[in-house]
């Protein structure tokens, strides 16, 4: 935590990108206050209005205000991607730590499954899982977790193996420390920074994959104002109402840019070994 605060003071890139991340979150939280219209309220006589003074981003086929939907989409898309990354992070790290720390059969089983998952393209399996289970945000999160946890498990495992050999851990073992104590007090604090960096740099990529599943119809379902789903709906009106495609896409793009830059800066702050 102290490192982060120091980073904010000394690393300008980290300070600036952190500001933008907070701004994004603020926009998402304040959506009900700043959005001029209800994102779900249909007003049929206003369908397909081009961007104008009343509707900055135009309106969709049901006359819903696109600007309000993009704003609410920030809350919807951000919270779902943060949930996704948290789930992957927790499951992947836990399995990796367990495999690395306890070794033996547990390790073999976990890593064999991980090897299997990593040896072929994840997106097609994610599409299959999300699609077969039926399109919903939860199923999309399950699908992406199934294909992504291995990365975290492998990383966590390899770091645990390294930390385990360090003197202070061996000393703790010799002194009769319980596994729980050693894991919480000695192992986790040492591997967590790099795991967090990895998770932070993944937010952007995960956002695109989640939006991709929604775009295919295997993620969030109507009428949710989710950006990927809005692109799916906007795609059909590419000719008549291009604003329905432009703004949600721009929103995804900007969010991904901010999180990617923030992830890079965070890496610089937390991982001193890394040099540019």
């Amino acid at each position, binding site marked *: 935590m102290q490192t982060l605060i120091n980073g904010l003071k000394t690393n300008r890139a980290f300070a600036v990108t952190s500001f933008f991340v907070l701004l994004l979150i603020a926009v998402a939280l304040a959506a009900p206050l700043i959005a001029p219209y209800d994102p779900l309220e249909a007003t049929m006589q206003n369908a397909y209005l081009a961007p104008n003074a009343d509707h900055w981003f135009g309106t969709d086929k049901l006359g819903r205000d696109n600007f309000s939907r993009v704003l609410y989409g920030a809350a919807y898309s951000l919270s779902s991607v943060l949930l996704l990354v948290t789930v992957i992070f927790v499951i992947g790290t836990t399995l990796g730590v367990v495999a690395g720390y306890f070794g033996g059969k547990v390790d073999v089983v976990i890593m064999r499954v991980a090897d299997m998952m990593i040896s072929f393209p994840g997106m097609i399996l994610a599409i299959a899982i999300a699609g077969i289970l039926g399109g919903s945000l939860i199923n999309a999160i399950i699908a992406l977790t199934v294909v992504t946890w291995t990365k975290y498990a492998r990383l966590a495992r390899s770091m645990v193996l390294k930390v385990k050999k360090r003197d202070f851990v061996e000393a703790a073992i010799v002194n009769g420390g319980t596994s729980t104590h050693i894991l919480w007090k000695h192992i986790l604090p040492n591997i967590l920074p790099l795991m967090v960096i990895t998770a932070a740099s993944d937010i952007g990529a995960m956002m695109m994959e989640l939006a991709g599943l929604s775009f295919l119809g295997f993620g969030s379902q109507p009428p949710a104002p989710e950006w990927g789903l809005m*692109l799916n709906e906007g795609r059909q009106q590419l000719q008549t109402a291009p604003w329905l495609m432009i703004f949600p896409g721009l929103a995804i793009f900007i969010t991904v840019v901010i999180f*990617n830059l923030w992830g890079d800066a965070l890496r610089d702050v937390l991982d001193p070994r890394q040099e540019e």
Partner: protein
Amino acid sequence: MTNKQLLSRIAQILVVLLGISFITFALVMLSPGDPVRQMIAGNEDIIVSQQEIDALRHELGLDKPFIFQYLDWLGRAVQGDFGFSYMVKKPVVEQLMESLPATVILALASTVFMLLVSIPAGIYSAVKHGSVFDYVVRGLTFIGVSVPNFWMGLMLLWIFGLKLRLLPIVGGRVSLETLILPALTLGIVMASKFTRQVRTAVLEELNQDYVVGARARGMSENHILWKEVLPNAMLPLITLLGLSFGNLLGGAAVVEIVFSWPGLGYLAVQSIIYRDFQLVQGIVLWIALMYMVINLIIDASYNHLDPRLRKAGR
């Protein structure tokens, strides 16, 4: 790669295929909705009698316990029979072979585009690192990796298809005209990633001691770059190239949908929407197989290309 290693890799591939087929099979069992009802009614809302459903279910063996169904399927699959797709009214294998060329063409076209852009841009930006060119390349590639590929596709479709009217907006067939936009979409996104990787690989080699040594001995910069640095830098890139090509074969689904490009990804999404699980199963396995075989070939050639591995007798 020795024969023994090759055999163990092939065994590994078979195990993975077995695992994946089991997972997808189990998923189908868990999925909501009744594929048999869908098989008869399609996506239309017609009334189907329960007897009709039960009869077909029995005929297809879908009333047996899960594990028997899986073994039945497996038994036929090892003989090359992946079942019948009711969506396209053809055997699954036949449909796979029909959709494969489109995907391969798209993958090749976008990979060629990617190489044409990334290799020169990556090398030049590494050699001139810190220059304006380097900053521009890094900026553009950063944007490239942050754009969702389907949005890039939609924007290109809108600009070139609708605004400028240079290219057709209706897909559904394989031709040079319809290939340009999807290949460009995938190519731009991949080139952004690959340019960065080329740049990093070349920069890393340029910082090696042997480069300093070569300079000290008065070798020309051109000689160092072309004869020493590039051959070394290219090795790790071959693996990355293999991975991205493999990913294209399976991961281009979203872009194939945007452009209605009739490849495997498009077929996968359609078959899932129609809940044609025999076809889904076939596609997933086929894509996994292609991906793993490509990786195997890359690894084998990698061992062959890298003298360090050769000497170690691997």
